């Protein structure tokens, strides 16, 4: 893919990310962090490609598999723990 285009996307995403979170109530700092942490597990996509597209038993495939396990823990654990936290907050004030 065109390198310049990738950079273009990167820069735009950076500005978007900076604009997205301006004033967050401190109550939400932990869930925001843990929720965005789960998103950073998007590297799971790279791990899937490395695991599935490489030759069976090759070094690349093994590394991909290990990456897949850790990325999945990051993603699943991250979303579930964030949800648990927010559920706790939700009960309040009702």
């Amino acid at each position, binding site marked *: *893919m065109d*390198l310049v285009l*990738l950079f273009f996307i*990167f820069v735009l*995403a*950076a500005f*978007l*990310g*900076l604009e*997205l979170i301006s004033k967050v109530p*401190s*109550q*939400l*700092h*932990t*869930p*925001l*962090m843990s*929720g965005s*942490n*789960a*998103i*950073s*597990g*998007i*590297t*799971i*996509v*790279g*791990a*899937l*490609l*490395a*695991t*599935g597209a*490489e030759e*069976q038993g090759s*070094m*690349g*495939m093994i*590394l*991909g598999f*290990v*990456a*897949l396990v*850790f*990325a*999945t*823990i*990051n993603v*699943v*654990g991250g*979303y*579930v*723990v964030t949800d648990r*936290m927010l559920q706790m*907050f939700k*009960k*309040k*004030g009702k």
Partner: protein
Amino acid sequence: MEANVLINLAYVVAATLFVFGIKMLGSADTARRGNLVSGLGMLFAVVVTLVDRSILSYTWILAGLVLGSAIGLVAARLVKMTAMPELVALFNGFGGLASLLVAWAEFEKIRGMGWAAYELAMESNAIFSGFVIYLAMFIGGVTFTGSLFAYGKLSGKLSGTAIVFKGQKAFNLLLCVAILGIGIVFTWGSDLELTYKLFLTGMGLSLLFGVMGVMPIGGGDMPVVISLLNSLSGMAASAAGFVISNNVLIVAGCLVGASGLILTVIMCKAMNRSLGNVLFSGFGASSSSGGAEDDREPKAISVEDAFYVLEAASSVVFIPGYGMAVAQAQHVVKELAELLEENGTEANFAIHPVAGRMPGHMNVLLAEADVEYEKLLEMDTVNPMMPTVDVAIVIGANDVVNPAATDDESSPIYGMPIIEAHQAKTVFVLKRGQGKGFSGLVNKLFVMENTRMIYGDAKSTISSLVNELKSSS
């Protein structure tokens, strides 16, 4: 080709869901739905990737997904709310590790086919590929070991104090230069055997750097480090996205990197310090860190006497800190607050943004104890009403209530916004012993005329107050 276009379109949808998810996480009413929206985006991205035609076998993919999900689910379900900070740090480290491994796997592919063939097959530039592989490995590695070290500190497996040794800065600088130097040779090197060795060396040094970077940072600065590591894990994913030329990794990773950076800045502002100061000063390691001396002795008060004061008070504010988390006192504190309310006393909580060891730490603890959200007041709300408060009860907080931050220019924490507990008519400070706070500073609040210390374990102190109140009513 057709499939590829469809996959990329699907990635656009996933990225959009992430954007909305993060946006919604920033506001209390929509936060939970926001998390679901972003989770949906993730699910979508994963499912779509599975139909990529370059995937040959699904056996190991299935095994990896099942194994990872099982571990993640069990860990997230079983963890106690109080252990939340360290779990988030651990997950964060895993994300960094995964990005490192993805970059490494791509490098193995290159080792298998040679640079020239790789350039042709991927329509990429060898120097650029080398650069981003090294970059993803570096950021991922630092995130991994840095988060592991932070996990150790947060869970109490490692000492929470800053570890500083002579020549530490020089050593870290040398480490930086070495990592950078190796990276340059790696990027422009074409000999596969040599670059492989360089890659492994660079990886070893990056992993070491993660540990060395977090080591000199004291416990009270952890909120900054945790949010910075969170930002880095996003950047690592983004770099990995450049490695495999994948849009959704670049965008999602970058979003996390940028929003994590904002949170880091918020944390730094709450301490009135720059990021550089937090990272490199080794704050809290030295006990002779300046500040005016004060030879007045703190005055202690017994639990019974404290009870009489509380019974007569018409408004009380609790100011929790890390000590409350350590003593696991949040449930009894909530009980005490309820009893006080029944007694006709107004009871609120004042939350400093950097109280505890991670952003929003106190909020999580008190929410776990079922304290109503409306009772948690932020610093700006609570400070103006402080002079009308009868009793401020400081529970295991120290620097965030140190008046030296407002009036002692020689103090290292001068300028840091604090909760002005000293303005209250009476201040009770619950403290384990007579030691200093994590910053090693003498807290002026403790020796003020209107302050009374209650020494001992916060949980048992509060429990006895609760019992006194119960028996009196």
